[in-house]
Protein backbone atom coordinates (compact mmCIF):
# COMPACT_ATOMS: atom_id res chain seq x y z
CA UNK A 1 0.00 0.00 0.00
CA UNK A 2 1.95 3.04 -1.25
CA UNK A 3 2.15 5.95 1.17
CA UNK A 4 -0.17 8.13 -0.83
CA UNK A 5 -3.15 5.79 -0.67
CA UNK A 6 -3.02 5.85 3.16
CA UNK A 7 -4.66 9.26 2.92
CA UNK A 8 -7.50 7.85 0.86
CA UNK A 9 -8.09 4.77 3.01
CA UNK A 10 -10.38 6.29 5.69
CA UNK A 11 -12.63 7.94 3.09
CA UNK A 12 -12.69 4.83 0.91
CA UNK A 13 -13.64 2.55 3.80
CA UNK A 14 -16.28 4.89 5.18
CA UNK A 15 -17.90 5.60 1.82
CA UNK A 16 -17.80 1.91 0.86
CA UNK A 17 -19.62 0.79 4.00
CA UNK A 18 -22.00 3.70 4.58
CA UNK A 19 -22.68 4.89 1.04
CA UNK A 20 -21.82 2.32 -1.61
CA UNK A 21 -23.20 -0.71 0.26
CA UNK A 22 -26.50 0.99 1.17
CA UNK A 23 -26.81 2.20 -2.42
CA UNK A 24 -26.28 -1.40 -3.52
CA UNK A 25 -29.14 -2.44 -1.26
CA UNK A 26 -31.36 0.28 -2.76
CA UNK A 27 -30.44 -0.98 -6.24
CA UNK A 28 -31.39 -4.50 -5.15
CA UNK A 29 -34.68 -3.20 -3.74
CA UNK A 30 -35.49 -1.54 -7.06
CA UNK A 31 -35.59 -5.02 -8.65
CA UNK A 32 -37.74 -6.60 -5.95
CA UNK A 33 -41.45 -6.43 -5.33
CA UNK A 34 -43.29 -4.66 -2.55
CA UNK A 35 -43.91 -6.72 0.58
CA UNK A 36 -47.45 -7.26 1.88
CA UNK A 37 -46.99 -4.53 4.42
CA UNK A 38 -43.95 -2.46 3.40
CA UNK A 39 -40.55 -4.08 3.17
CA UNK A 40 -39.48 -6.07 0.12
CA UNK A 41 -39.71 -9.67 -1.03
CA UNK A 42 -39.08 -11.93 -4.01
CA UNK A 43 -39.61 -12.39 -6.96
CA UNK A 44 -37.05 -10.24 -8.76
CA UNK A 45 -38.68 -8.02 -11.38
CA UNK A 46 -38.04 -4.96 -13.50
CA UNK A 47 -41.67 -3.98 -13.14
CA UNK A 48 -40.70 -0.98 -11.01
CA UNK A 49 -38.74 0.48 -13.89
CA UNK A 50 -41.30 -0.28 -16.60
CA UNK A 51 -43.90 1.29 -14.35
CA UNK A 52 -41.95 4.56 -14.56
CA UNK A 53 -42.81 4.78 -18.25
CA UNK A 54 -46.44 5.24 -17.21
CA UNK A 55 -47.69 8.66 -18.47
CA UNK A 56 -48.68 9.59 -14.90
CA UNK A 57 -45.06 9.50 -13.74
CA UNK A 58 -43.85 11.12 -16.94
CA UNK A 59 -46.09 14.11 -16.23
CA UNK A 60 -44.57 14.28 -12.74
CA UNK A 61 -41.07 14.08 -14.25
CA UNK A 62 -41.96 16.78 -16.81
CA UNK A 63 -43.42 18.99 -14.08
CA UNK A 64 -40.29 18.59 -11.92
CA UNK A 65 -37.99 19.38 -14.85
CA UNK A 66 -40.16 22.42 -15.66
CA UNK A 67 -40.18 23.84 -12.12
CA UNK A 68 -36.52 23.02 -11.47
CA UNK A 69 -35.59 24.62 -14.81
CA UNK A 70 -37.60 27.76 -14.06
CA UNK A 71 -36.10 28.02 -10.57
CA UNK A 72 -32.60 27.63 -12.09
CA UNK A 73 -33.29 30.35 -14.68
CA UNK A 74 -34.56 32.68 -11.94
CA UNK A 75 -31.48 31.97 -9.82
CA UNK A 76 -29.31 32.80 -12.84
CA UNK A 77 -31.20 36.04 -13.54
CA UNK A 78 -31.11 37.15 -9.91
CA UNK A 79 -27.68 35.71 -9.09
CA UNK A 80 -25.60 37.00 -12.02
CA UNK A 81 -25.82 40.75 -11.31
CA UNK A 82 -25.26 40.08 -7.60
CA UNK A 83 -22.15 37.99 -8.34
CA UNK A 84 -20.92 40.68 -10.77
CA UNK A 85 -21.39 43.38 -8.15
CA UNK A 86 -19.54 41.36 -5.50
CA UNK A 87 -16.72 40.46 -7.92
CA UNK A 88 -16.13 44.13 -8.65
CA UNK A 89 -16.45 45.63 -5.16
CA UNK A 90 -12.79 45.44 -4.22
CA UNK A 91 -12.00 44.97 -0.54
CA UNK A 92 -15.67 44.38 0.46
CA UNK A 93 -15.73 41.23 -1.64
CA UNK A 94 -15.19 38.75 1.17
CA UNK A 95 -17.66 40.48 3.49
CA UNK A 96 -20.38 40.56 0.82
CA UNK A 97 -19.75 36.89 0.04
CA UNK A 98 -20.20 36.03 3.71
CA UNK A 99 -23.44 38.04 3.69
CA UNK A 100 -24.76 35.97 0.78
CA UNK A 101 -23.83 32.79 2.65
CA UNK A 102 -25.14 33.81 6.09
CA UNK A 103 -28.77 32.66 5.61
CA UNK A 104 -27.38 29.49 4.04
CA UNK A 105 -25.78 28.57 7.36
CA UNK A 106 -29.15 28.36 9.09
CA UNK A 107 -31.43 25.36 8.96
CA UNK A 108 -33.19 24.65 5.69
CA UNK A 109 -36.39 24.12 7.65
CA UNK A 110 -36.13 27.45 9.45
CA UNK A 111 -35.67 29.32 6.21
CA UNK A 112 -38.67 27.64 4.62
CA UNK A 113 -40.81 28.36 7.67
CA UNK A 114 -39.80 31.96 7.59
CA UNK A 115 -41.55 32.25 4.25
CA UNK A 116 -44.64 30.52 5.65
CA UNK A 117 -44.67 33.15 8.34
CA UNK A 118 -44.42 35.96 5.76
CA UNK A 119 -46.70 34.67 2.99
CA UNK A 120 -49.74 33.34 4.94
CA UNK A 121 -53.02 35.21 4.72
CA UNK A 122 -52.34 36.52 8.20
CA UNK A 123 -48.71 36.76 7.26
CA UNK A 124 -46.55 39.85 7.21
CA UNK A 125 -47.08 40.99 3.64
CA UNK A 126 -50.85 40.70 3.72
CA UNK A 127 -51.02 42.47 7.09
CA UNK A 128 -48.98 45.36 5.76
CA UNK A 129 -50.94 45.57 2.50
CA UNK A 130 -54.22 45.48 4.40
CA UNK A 131 -53.01 48.07 6.90
CA UNK A 132 -52.13 50.35 3.96
CA UNK A 133 -55.55 49.62 2.38
CA UNK A 134 -53.81 48.56 -0.81
CA UNK A 135 -55.88 45.40 -0.86
CA UNK A 136 -59.33 44.60 0.52
CA UNK A 137 -58.82 40.90 1.28
CA UNK A 138 -55.64 38.93 1.89
CA UNK A 139 -53.97 37.71 -1.29
CA UNK A 140 -53.15 34.06 -1.57
CA UNK A 141 -49.36 33.96 -1.91
CA UNK A 142 -49.04 30.54 -0.35
CA UNK A 143 -49.83 26.98 -1.54
CA UNK A 144 -49.23 27.56 -5.23
CA UNK A 145 -46.41 27.07 -7.71
CA UNK A 146 -45.31 30.65 -7.18
CA UNK A 147 -44.61 29.94 -3.52
CA UNK A 148 -42.69 26.76 -4.43
CA UNK A 149 -40.57 28.71 -6.95
CA UNK A 150 -39.92 31.43 -4.40
CA UNK A 151 -38.85 28.84 -1.83
CA UNK A 152 -36.54 27.06 -4.30
CA UNK A 153 -34.96 30.30 -5.55
CA UNK A 154 -34.54 31.60 -2.00
CA UNK A 155 -32.89 28.40 -0.75
CA UNK A 156 -30.65 27.69 -3.73
CA UNK A 157 -29.60 31.19 -4.91
CA UNK A 158 -26.26 30.97 -3.04
CA UNK A 159 -25.52 27.74 -4.98
CA UNK A 160 -25.49 29.89 -8.14
CA UNK A 161 -23.79 33.01 -6.81
CA UNK A 162 -20.69 31.16 -5.53
CA UNK A 163 -19.39 29.58 -8.78
CA UNK A 164 -20.52 32.69 -10.69
CA UNK A 165 -18.49 34.91 -8.37
CA UNK A 166 -15.44 32.64 -8.77
CA UNK A 167 -15.65 33.02 -12.58
CA UNK A 168 -16.38 36.77 -12.65
CA UNK A 169 -13.62 37.49 -10.16
CA UNK A 170 -11.12 36.20 -12.69
CA UNK A 171 -12.59 38.35 -15.50
CA UNK A 172 -9.95 40.90 -16.62
CA UNK A 173 -11.36 44.41 -16.16
CA UNK A 174 -9.31 45.56 -19.17
CA UNK A 175 -11.66 43.50 -21.38
CA UNK A 176 -14.63 45.59 -20.20
CA UNK A 177 -12.68 48.79 -20.82
CA UNK A 178 -11.54 47.58 -24.23
CA UNK A 179 -15.14 46.88 -25.23
CA UNK A 180 -16.22 50.34 -24.03
CA UNK A 181 -13.26 51.83 -25.83
CA UNK A 182 -14.40 50.17 -29.05
CA UNK A 183 -17.79 51.82 -28.75
CA UNK A 184 -19.83 49.20 -26.86
CA UNK A 185 -22.38 50.63 -24.40
CA UNK A 186 -22.69 48.81 -21.04
CA UNK A 187 -25.43 46.42 -22.14
CA UNK A 188 -23.59 45.63 -25.37
CA UNK A 189 -20.45 44.91 -23.36
CA UNK A 190 -22.50 42.64 -21.05
CA UNK A 191 -24.05 40.83 -23.99
CA UNK A 192 -21.04 40.50 -26.26
CA UNK A 193 -18.17 40.16 -23.78
CA UNK A 194 -19.07 39.45 -20.13
CA UNK A 195 -21.73 36.78 -20.65
CA UNK A 196 -19.91 34.76 -23.35
CA UNK A 197 -16.71 34.72 -21.34
CA UNK A 198 -18.45 33.76 -18.05
CA UNK A 199 -20.68 31.14 -19.73
CA UNK A 200 -18.78 28.26 -18.03
CA UNK A 201 -19.49 29.80 -14.61
CA UNK A 202 -23.15 30.21 -15.55
CA UNK A 203 -23.27 26.55 -16.58
CA UNK A 204 -21.64 25.40 -13.34
CA UNK A 205 -23.94 27.53 -11.21
CA UNK A 206 -27.02 26.36 -13.10
CA UNK A 207 -26.15 22.68 -12.62
CA UNK A 208 -25.46 23.25 -8.89
CA UNK A 209 -28.96 24.78 -8.56
CA UNK A 210 -30.86 22.46 -10.94
CA UNK A 211 -29.82 19.18 -9.26
CA UNK A 212 -31.07 20.01 -5.72
CA UNK A 213 -34.21 21.64 -7.17
CA UNK A 214 -35.02 18.49 -9.14
CA UNK A 215 -34.86 16.38 -5.96
CA UNK A 216 -36.44 18.94 -3.63
CA UNK A 217 -39.38 17.74 -1.53
CA UNK A 218 -39.54 19.76 1.69
CA UNK A 219 -40.02 23.09 -0.12
CA UNK A 220 -42.78 21.89 -2.49
CA UNK A 221 -44.36 20.02 0.43
CA UNK A 222 -44.45 22.96 2.85
CA UNK A 223 -44.98 25.88 0.45
CA UNK A 224 -46.91 24.00 -2.24
CA UNK A 225 -49.64 22.80 0.14
CA UNK A 226 -49.19 19.21 -1.05
CA UNK A 227 -51.16 20.08 -4.21
CA UNK A 228 -48.30 19.57 -6.61
CA UNK A 229 -46.11 16.52 -6.88
CA UNK A 230 -42.45 16.81 -7.85
CA UNK A 231 -40.04 13.87 -8.22
CA UNK A 232 -38.83 14.44 -4.65
CA UNK A 233 -42.39 14.18 -3.28
CA UNK A 234 -43.08 11.06 -5.37
CA UNK A 235 -39.95 9.34 -4.02
CA UNK A 236 -40.65 10.55 -0.47
CA UNK A 237 -44.25 9.32 -0.68
CA UNK A 238 -43.23 5.85 -1.89
CA UNK A 239 -40.87 5.42 1.07
CA UNK A 240 -43.41 6.67 3.63
CA UNK A 241 -47.20 6.64 3.01
CA UNK A 242 -47.27 4.20 0.10
CA UNK A 243 -44.62 1.99 1.75
CA UNK A 244 -43.55 0.93 -1.74
CA UNK A 245 -39.79 0.86 -1.24
CA UNK A 246 -38.98 -0.97 -4.54
CA UNK A 247 -40.78 1.58 -6.70
CA UNK A 248 -39.37 4.42 -4.58
CA UNK A 249 -35.88 2.97 -5.09
CA UNK A 250 -36.37 2.75 -8.85
CA UNK A 251 -37.66 6.33 -9.11
CA UNK A 252 -34.87 7.71 -6.93
CA UNK A 253 -32.16 5.82 -8.82
CA UNK A 254 -33.44 7.36 -12.03
CA UNK A 255 -33.40 10.79 -10.39
CA UNK A 256 -29.84 10.16 -9.23
CA UNK A 257 -28.81 8.92 -12.68
CA UNK A 258 -30.12 12.15 -14.26
CA UNK A 259 -28.30 14.28 -11.67
CA UNK A 260 -25.08 12.26 -11.96
CA UNK A 261 -25.08 12.58 -15.78
CA UNK A 262 -25.57 16.35 -15.49
CA UNK A 263 -22.74 16.58 -12.97
CA UNK A 264 -20.46 14.34 -15.06
CA UNK A 265 -21.06 16.60 -18.07
CA UNK A 266 -20.12 19.58 -15.92
CA UNK A 267 -17.05 17.76 -14.55
CA UNK A 268 -15.70 16.96 -17.97
CA UNK A 269 -16.16 20.49 -19.20
CA UNK A 270 -13.15 22.77 -18.72
CA UNK A 271 -14.91 24.88 -16.15
CA UNK A 272 -15.08 22.24 -13.47
CA UNK A 273 -11.35 21.99 -13.00
CA UNK A 274 -11.28 25.71 -12.42
CA UNK A 275 -14.19 25.92 -10.04
CA UNK A 276 -14.77 22.67 -8.18
Amino acid at each position, binding site marked *: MSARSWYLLPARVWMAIFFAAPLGIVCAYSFLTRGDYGGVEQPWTIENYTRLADPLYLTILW*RSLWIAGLATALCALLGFPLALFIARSGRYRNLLLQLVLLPFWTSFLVRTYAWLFILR*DTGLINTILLRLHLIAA*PLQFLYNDGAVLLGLVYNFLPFFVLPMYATLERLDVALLEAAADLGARPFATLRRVVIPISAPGIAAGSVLVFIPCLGAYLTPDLLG*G*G*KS*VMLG*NLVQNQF*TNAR*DWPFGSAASLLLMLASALLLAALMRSRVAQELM
Partner: protein
Amino acid sequence: MSRRRFLFAATAGLACSTDRRPRLNVYNWSTYIDPAMIASFEAERGVRVRYGTYESNEEMLAKAITGNSGWDVVFPTHSRLAPMSRNGLLARLDHRLLPSLGKLDRRFQKPFWDPALAWGVPYMWNATGIGFNRDQVEQPSGWSTLWSSKLSGRITMLDDPEDVIGACLLKLGFPFDSTDAGQLQAARAQAIEQKRLLRAYINAEVKDQLVAGDVLAAQMWSITAASAIRGNGRIGFAYPGEGFPLYCDCAAILRESRRYDLAHEFLDFLLRPEVAAANARVADTATANGAALALLPRDPVLYPPDDIYARGVWPPALPSEAQRYRDRLWTEIKAA
Protein backbone atom coordinates in the same frame (compact mmCIF):
# COMPACT_ATOMS: atom_id res chain seq x y z
CA MET B 1 -44.66 28.84 32.43
CA SER B 2 -44.31 27.18 35.80
CA ARG B 3 -40.89 26.94 37.25
CA ARG B 4 -41.49 23.24 37.78
CA ARG B 5 -41.60 22.62 34.04
CA PHE B 6 -38.37 24.52 33.64
CA LEU B 7 -36.66 22.37 36.27
CA PHE B 8 -38.22 19.31 34.68
CA ALA B 9 -36.58 20.11 31.35
CA ALA B 10 -33.23 20.93 32.93
CA THR B 11 -33.09 17.69 34.97
CA ALA B 12 -34.26 15.67 31.97
CA GLY B 13 -31.32 16.98 30.03
CA LEU B 14 -28.90 15.86 32.72
CA ALA B 15 -30.66 12.69 33.78
CA CYS B 16 -30.54 10.99 30.40
CA SER B 17 -26.88 10.14 30.62
CA THR B 18 -26.24 9.03 34.20
CA ASP B 19 -29.58 7.35 34.95
CA ARG B 20 -29.46 3.74 36.16
CA ARG B 21 -33.26 3.22 36.55
CA PRO B 22 -34.95 0.65 34.21
CA ARG B 23 -36.10 2.25 30.98
CA LEU B 24 -39.42 2.13 29.09
CA ASN B 25 -39.54 3.64 25.57
CA VAL B 26 -42.96 4.95 24.56
CA TYR B 27 -43.57 6.19 20.98
CA ASN B 28 -46.88 8.00 20.65
CA TRP B 29 -48.81 10.59 18.57
CA SER B 30 -47.41 14.01 19.36
CA THR B 31 -50.13 15.55 21.55
CA TYR B 32 -51.59 12.44 23.07
CA ILE B 33 -50.40 12.43 26.69
CA ASP B 34 -50.21 14.63 29.76
CA PRO B 35 -46.50 14.96 30.71
CA ALA B 36 -47.55 14.91 34.38
CA MET B 37 -48.91 11.38 33.93
CA ILE B 38 -45.52 10.22 32.66
CA ALA B 39 -43.85 11.78 35.70
CA SER B 40 -46.27 10.07 38.10
CA PHE B 41 -45.76 6.69 36.39
CA GLU B 42 -41.99 7.16 36.66
CA ALA B 43 -42.32 8.07 40.36
CA GLU B 44 -44.72 5.21 41.13
CA ARG B 45 -42.64 2.51 39.42
CA GLY B 46 -39.14 4.04 39.88
CA VAL B 47 -38.54 3.78 36.15
CA ARG B 48 -37.48 6.18 33.48
CA VAL B 49 -39.83 6.74 30.49
CA ARG B 50 -38.28 7.88 27.21
CA TYR B 51 -41.16 9.52 25.30
CA GLY B 52 -40.90 10.01 21.50
CA THR B 53 -43.55 11.40 19.15
CA TYR B 54 -44.65 10.86 15.56
CA GLU B 55 -47.18 12.50 13.22
CA SER B 56 -48.37 9.56 11.11
CA ASN B 57 -48.71 5.79 11.38
CA GLU B 58 -46.22 5.43 8.52
CA GLU B 59 -43.57 7.37 10.46
CA MET B 60 -43.95 4.90 13.37
CA LEU B 61 -44.11 1.87 11.02
CA ALA B 62 -40.87 2.86 9.27
CA LYS B 63 -39.11 2.37 12.61
CA ALA B 64 -41.13 -0.61 13.87
CA ILE B 65 -40.53 -2.60 10.64
CA THR B 66 -36.77 -2.64 11.28
CA GLY B 67 -37.36 -4.96 14.24
CA ASN B 68 -34.84 -3.15 16.43
CA SER B 69 -36.15 0.40 16.68
CA GLY B 70 -35.76 0.28 20.47
CA TRP B 71 -39.38 1.33 21.15
CA ASP B 72 -41.51 -0.73 23.58
CA VAL B 73 -45.02 0.77 23.43
CA VAL B 74 -46.53 2.26 20.25
CA PHE B 75 -50.01 3.60 19.42
CA PRO B 76 -51.07 2.39 15.93
CA THR B 77 -54.54 3.27 14.57
CA HIS B 78 -57.00 0.34 14.85
CA SER B 79 -56.80 -0.63 11.12
CA ARG B 80 -53.02 -1.14 11.44
CA LEU B 81 -53.28 -3.71 14.29
CA ALA B 82 -54.15 -6.70 12.07
CA PRO B 83 -51.39 -6.23 9.44
CA MET B 84 -48.80 -5.42 12.13
CA SER B 85 -49.68 -8.55 14.12
CA ARG B 86 -49.72 -10.63 10.90
CA ASN B 87 -46.21 -9.35 10.14
CA GLY B 88 -45.06 -10.40 13.63
CA LEU B 89 -44.40 -6.85 14.81
CA LEU B 90 -46.69 -6.94 17.86
CA ALA B 91 -46.56 -8.94 21.10
CA ARG B 92 -49.77 -10.70 22.17
CA LEU B 93 -51.27 -8.98 25.23
CA ASP B 94 -51.52 -10.94 28.49
CA HIS B 95 -54.88 -10.00 30.05
CA ARG B 96 -53.71 -11.29 33.43
CA LEU B 97 -51.37 -8.27 33.51
CA LEU B 98 -54.20 -5.90 32.49
CA PRO B 99 -56.72 -5.98 35.40
CA SER B 100 -58.20 -2.58 34.41
CA LEU B 101 -59.39 -3.75 30.97
CA GLY B 102 -62.91 -3.66 32.38
CA LYS B 103 -62.68 0.15 32.59
CA LEU B 104 -62.96 0.38 28.77
CA ASP B 105 -66.15 1.90 27.28
CA ARG B 106 -68.49 -0.97 26.25
CA ARG B 107 -68.13 0.15 22.59
CA PHE B 108 -64.45 -0.76 22.78
CA GLN B 109 -64.73 -3.98 24.87
CA LYS B 110 -65.00 -6.19 21.73
CA PRO B 111 -64.01 -3.98 18.78
CA PHE B 112 -64.51 -5.71 15.41
CA TRP B 113 -60.83 -5.17 14.52
CA ASP B 114 -59.53 -7.02 17.65
CA PRO B 115 -62.52 -8.70 19.41
CA ALA B 116 -60.33 -10.51 21.96
CA LEU B 117 -58.22 -7.37 22.61
CA ALA B 118 -55.26 -9.61 21.85
CA TRP B 119 -53.08 -6.98 20.21
CA GLY B 120 -54.08 -3.47 21.31
CA VAL B 121 -55.81 -1.62 24.17
CA PRO B 122 -58.09 1.12 22.73
CA TYR B 123 -56.73 4.43 24.04
CA MET B 124 -58.05 7.53 22.23
CA TRP B 125 -60.47 7.85 19.35
CA ASN B 126 -61.57 10.54 16.98
CA ALA B 127 -63.48 11.15 13.79
CA THR B 128 -62.77 13.06 10.59
CA GLY B 129 -65.32 15.76 9.83
CA ILE B 130 -65.53 19.36 8.75
CA GLY B 131 -64.17 22.22 10.84
CA PHE B 132 -65.76 25.49 9.70
CA ASN B 133 -65.94 29.20 10.44
CA ARG B 134 -69.39 29.90 11.94
CA ASP B 135 -69.44 33.57 10.84
CA GLN B 136 -68.97 32.84 7.14
CA VAL B 137 -70.17 29.23 6.66
CA GLU B 138 -73.56 27.86 7.73
CA GLN B 139 -73.70 24.50 9.52
CA PRO B 140 -72.56 21.90 6.90
CA SER B 141 -74.99 18.99 6.49
CA GLY B 142 -72.68 16.86 4.34
CA TRP B 143 -69.28 16.66 2.67
CA SER B 144 -70.47 18.86 -0.22
CA THR B 145 -69.61 21.97 1.83
CA LEU B 146 -65.98 21.21 1.00
CA TRP B 147 -66.93 21.45 -2.67
CA SER B 148 -68.82 24.76 -2.53
CA SER B 149 -67.38 27.19 -5.04
CA LYS B 150 -68.42 30.07 -2.73
CA LEU B 151 -65.51 29.09 -0.44
CA SER B 152 -62.99 28.72 -3.30
CA GLY B 153 -59.42 29.07 -2.08
CA ARG B 154 -60.48 28.80 1.59
CA ILE B 155 -61.00 25.01 1.72
CA THR B 156 -58.40 22.48 2.86
CA MET B 157 -58.36 18.67 2.95
CA LEU B 158 -56.19 16.33 5.00
CA ASP B 159 -52.94 15.30 3.31
CA ASP B 160 -53.98 11.61 3.63
CA PRO B 161 -55.19 9.33 0.79
CA GLU B 162 -57.50 7.28 3.06
CA ASP B 163 -59.39 10.35 4.33
CA VAL B 164 -59.60 12.28 1.03
CA ILE B 165 -60.67 9.35 -1.15
CA GLY B 166 -62.95 8.11 1.65
CA ALA B 167 -64.69 11.51 1.90
CA CYS B 168 -65.24 11.57 -1.89
CA LEU B 169 -66.75 8.05 -1.74
CA LEU B 170 -69.10 9.02 1.11
CA LYS B 171 -70.12 12.21 -0.74
CA LEU B 172 -71.17 10.01 -3.70
CA GLY B 173 -73.03 7.64 -1.37
CA PHE B 174 -70.46 4.87 -1.71
CA PRO B 175 -68.92 3.00 1.29
CA PHE B 176 -65.82 4.70 2.87
CA ASP B 177 -63.66 1.58 2.42
CA SER B 178 -64.95 0.62 -1.07
CA THR B 179 -62.62 -1.35 -3.30
CA ASP B 180 -64.87 -1.14 -6.38
CA ALA B 181 -62.84 0.33 -9.27
CA GLY B 182 -65.85 2.18 -10.75
CA GLN B 183 -66.70 3.86 -7.45
CA LEU B 184 -63.05 4.71 -6.84
CA GLN B 185 -62.71 6.29 -10.31
CA ALA B 186 -65.79 8.41 -9.53
CA ALA B 187 -64.23 9.42 -6.22
CA ARG B 188 -61.00 10.30 -8.04
CA ALA B 189 -62.96 12.60 -10.39
CA GLN B 190 -64.58 14.32 -7.38
CA ALA B 191 -61.17 14.91 -5.78
CA ILE B 192 -59.68 16.33 -8.97
CA GLU B 193 -62.70 18.59 -9.49
CA GLN B 194 -62.32 19.83 -5.88
CA LYS B 195 -58.67 20.73 -6.50
CA ARG B 196 -59.78 23.87 -8.38
CA LEU B 197 -61.25 25.22 -5.15
CA LEU B 198 -58.68 23.71 -2.83
CA ARG B 199 -56.28 25.85 -0.79
CA ALA B 200 -54.05 22.97 0.29
CA TYR B 201 -53.78 19.37 1.51
CA ILE B 202 -52.71 20.04 5.09
CA ASN B 203 -52.95 18.19 8.43
CA ALA B 204 -52.95 19.48 12.02
CA GLU B 205 -51.17 22.73 11.15
CA VAL B 206 -54.43 23.94 9.51
CA LYS B 207 -55.67 24.72 13.03
CA ASP B 208 -53.89 28.12 13.15
CA GLN B 209 -55.23 29.08 9.74
CA LEU B 210 -58.80 28.07 10.68
CA VAL B 211 -58.60 30.02 13.94
CA ALA B 212 -57.08 33.01 12.14
CA GLY B 213 -59.73 32.94 9.41
CA ASP B 214 -57.42 32.16 6.46
CA VAL B 215 -59.31 28.87 6.05
CA LEU B 216 -63.13 28.74 6.24
CA ALA B 217 -63.83 25.01 5.87
CA ALA B 218 -61.37 22.19 6.49
CA GLN B 219 -61.50 18.42 6.55
CA MET B 220 -59.98 17.78 9.96
CA TRP B 221 -59.82 15.35 12.90
CA SER B 222 -62.33 16.05 15.69
CA ILE B 223 -59.49 16.43 18.22
CA THR B 224 -57.83 19.19 16.16
CA ALA B 225 -61.25 20.87 15.88
CA ALA B 226 -61.76 20.66 19.66
CA SER B 227 -58.51 22.51 20.35
CA ALA B 228 -59.27 25.02 17.55
CA ILE B 229 -62.67 25.73 19.14
CA ARG B 230 -60.95 26.36 22.44
CA GLY B 231 -58.75 28.88 20.57
CA ASN B 232 -61.68 30.64 18.86
CA GLY B 233 -65.32 30.16 19.84
CA ARG B 234 -66.51 31.08 16.33
CA ILE B 235 -65.18 27.74 14.96
CA GLY B 236 -67.60 24.81 14.55
CA PHE B 237 -67.22 21.12 13.80
CA ALA B 238 -69.71 19.03 11.81
CA TYR B 239 -70.12 15.27 11.41
CA PRO B 240 -71.20 14.97 7.71
CA GLY B 241 -74.61 13.41 7.10
CA GLU B 242 -73.38 10.85 4.53
CA GLY B 243 -71.14 9.34 7.22
CA PHE B 244 -67.61 9.79 8.47
CA PRO B 245 -64.60 7.65 9.41
CA LEU B 246 -63.84 6.89 13.04
CA TYR B 247 -60.30 6.08 14.14
CA CYS B 248 -59.26 4.47 17.40
CA ASP B 249 -55.57 4.64 18.38
CA CYS B 250 -54.64 1.61 20.46
CA ALA B 251 -51.72 1.07 22.82
CA ALA B 252 -49.71 -1.94 21.64
CA ILE B 253 -46.44 -3.60 22.63
CA LEU B 254 -43.79 -4.32 19.99
CA ARG B 255 -42.62 -7.96 19.85
CA GLU B 256 -38.98 -6.71 19.79
CA SER B 257 -39.47 -5.13 23.25
CA ARG B 258 -37.61 -6.92 26.11
CA ARG B 259 -39.69 -5.05 28.76
CA TYR B 260 -42.93 -7.07 28.31
CA ASP B 261 -44.14 -6.85 31.92
CA LEU B 262 -43.23 -3.18 32.46
CA ALA B 263 -45.01 -2.31 29.17
CA HIS B 264 -48.16 -4.09 30.47
CA GLU B 265 -47.93 -2.13 33.71
CA PHE B 266 -47.82 1.10 31.66
CA LEU B 267 -50.84 0.05 29.59
CA ASP B 268 -52.76 -0.82 32.73
CA PHE B 269 -51.68 2.51 34.28
CA LEU B 270 -53.17 4.31 31.25
CA LEU B 271 -56.45 2.45 31.85
CA ARG B 272 -56.93 3.99 35.30
CA PRO B 273 -59.93 6.32 35.05
CA GLU B 274 -58.18 9.37 36.56
CA VAL B 275 -55.10 8.87 34.35
CA ALA B 276 -57.21 8.38 31.19
CA ALA B 277 -59.29 11.47 32.11
CA ALA B 278 -56.15 13.61 32.68
CA ASN B 279 -54.65 12.50 29.35
CA ALA B 280 -57.90 13.16 27.49
CA ARG B 281 -58.29 16.60 29.09
CA VAL B 282 -54.72 17.79 28.39
CA ALA B 283 -54.55 16.24 24.90
CA ASP B 284 -58.07 17.45 24.06
CA THR B 285 -59.03 14.00 22.76
CA ALA B 286 -61.93 11.52 23.20
CA THR B 287 -60.97 8.68 25.55
CA ALA B 288 -61.91 5.03 24.99
CA ASN B 289 -62.02 4.59 28.78
CA GLY B 290 -65.65 4.31 29.86
CA ALA B 291 -64.92 4.94 33.57
CA ALA B 292 -63.05 8.16 32.73
CA LEU B 293 -66.07 9.63 30.89
CA ALA B 294 -67.70 10.44 34.23
CA LEU B 295 -64.73 12.70 35.10
CA LEU B 296 -64.83 14.58 31.77
CA PRO B 297 -67.17 17.26 30.35
CA ARG B 298 -69.34 15.79 27.57
CA ASP B 299 -67.94 17.87 24.67
CA PRO B 300 -70.31 17.19 21.70
CA VAL B 301 -67.40 17.69 19.29
CA LEU B 302 -65.37 14.93 20.89
CA TYR B 303 -68.31 12.72 21.92
CA PRO B 304 -71.05 12.99 19.28
CA PRO B 305 -74.52 11.89 20.41
CA ASP B 306 -75.43 8.25 19.63
CA ASP B 307 -77.56 9.01 16.54
CA ILE B 308 -74.61 10.80 14.88
CA TYR B 309 -72.07 8.25 16.21
CA ALA B 310 -74.13 5.50 14.52
CA ARG B 311 -73.40 7.05 11.10
CA GLY B 312 -69.64 6.65 11.75
CA VAL B 313 -67.66 3.81 10.15
CA TRP B 314 -64.49 2.17 11.48
CA PRO B 315 -62.40 1.70 8.30
CA PRO B 316 -60.69 -1.73 8.29
CA ALA B 317 -57.21 -2.40 6.89
CA LEU B 318 -57.46 -2.73 3.11
CA PRO B 319 -55.94 -5.74 1.31
CA SER B 320 -52.56 -4.71 -0.14
CA GLU B 321 -53.85 -4.89 -3.72
CA ALA B 322 -56.64 -2.36 -2.93
CA GLN B 323 -54.15 -0.27 -0.94
CA ARG B 324 -51.79 -0.16 -3.93
CA TYR B 325 -54.67 0.92 -6.22
CA ARG B 326 -55.57 3.75 -3.85
CA ASP B 327 -51.91 4.85 -3.57
CA ARG B 328 -51.85 5.18 -7.35
CA LEU B 329 -55.15 7.12 -7.34
CA TRP B 330 -53.66 9.45 -4.72
CA THR B 331 -50.61 10.13 -6.93
CA GLU B 332 -52.95 10.82 -9.88
CA ILE B 333 -55.02 13.23 -7.77
CA LYS B 334 -51.93 15.04 -6.56
CA ALA B 335 -50.37 15.20 -10.02
CA ALA B 336 -53.59 16.43 -11.66
